[in-house]
């Protein structure tokens, strides 16, 4: 049991370091087990150092910096335990445009070996995804789907007939 956990820890930590370094364009991060002797008695910490900064407790990071660390952790787990399907719902809400775009590019790359659905309100993400679906309420309270929606109409809240265009 302990051996199993340590193997998972090593596998995910290695990937986490690499993914965070790439997502943050040069930062360093790692997972730390509180008690390596008997891991089940301790917790799991995350340490991260955004590029150009001193190492920080993750609580001291900014909202967007925390969002990027979380995404790196999620991608690391997904790489360690590959699955055919992933759904991400507004994971870019704290990210500035540059970071949101980096996450979208990584999703795009990972989508060569798995299917990704990503719900987003951000233009940088919508621009990166090759396929786009719009959801609208054609009548009050009734959801409808618009295939391959044209995102330039998004800002002006797609009116039912316009979105269909």
């Amino acid at each position, binding site marked *: *049991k302990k051996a199993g*956990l340590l193997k*998972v*820890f090593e596998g*995910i930590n290695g990937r986490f370091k690499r993914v965070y370094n790439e997502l943050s364009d040069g930062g360093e991060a790692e997972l730390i*087990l*509180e008690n390596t002797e008997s*891991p*089940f008695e*301790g*917790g*799991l*910490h*995350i340490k991260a150092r955004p590029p150009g900064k001193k190492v920080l407790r*993750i609580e001291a990071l900014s909202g967007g910096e*925390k969002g990027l*660390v*979380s995404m790196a952790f*999620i991608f690391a*787990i*997904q790489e*360690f*335990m590959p699955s*055919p*399907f*992933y*759904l991400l*719902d507004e*994971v870019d*809400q*704290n990210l500035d445009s540059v970071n949101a775009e980096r996450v979208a590019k990584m*999703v*795009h790359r990972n*989508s*060569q070996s798995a*299917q*990704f*659905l*990503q*719900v987003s309100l951000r233009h940088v*993400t919508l621009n990166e*995804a*090759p*396929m*786009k*679906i*719009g*959801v609208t*309420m054609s*009548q*009050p*309270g*009734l*959801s409808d*789907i618009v295939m391959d*929606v044209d*995102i330039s109409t*998004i800002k002006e*809240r*797609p009116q039912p007939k316009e979105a269909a265009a």
Partner: protein
Amino acid sequence: MYLKRIVMENFKSFGKRIELPLLPGYTAITGPNGSGKSNISDAILFVLGPKSSRAIRAGKLPDLIFNGGPSKRAASECKVSLLFDNSDNVLPTGEKEVELTRHIRLTPGHASDYSSNFFINGRRSQLADFDDLLSHARLSADGYNFIQQGDINRIIQMGAVERRRILDDIA
């Protein structure tokens, strides 16, 4: 293996029969606040994760049935089907396509009584059959396949022990 189509009938705000075809690769879903984007994620979880605690943001299961909105009649049943392309035979059914369907129906006269049925390619099945099939594909409602709205903030906020438990589940 990939998700080829989602069909929703009277599931939450999708108050008619809606077919959503999907391709492999990367698809973005967008739309105004409250239009039904996260409800699509809930529809998938409804089929894949009947026992999952993440469930579907609803209080009770009957809350998932289309409530009629401001002007229509509330429905008394809802159904969601997920059609997977299985040409790589990841799901051991020997079929090129596998459709998982879940259907709940309110018991007439009892507002919170309902029956729940599961189908694999139209054949009536049990919840256990779903679990068994999905375990071959590493598709689980409790895994890191689904990052629901707001989960991104929880990963940092959760305690160290809770975070270690993520590794325990994977081991």
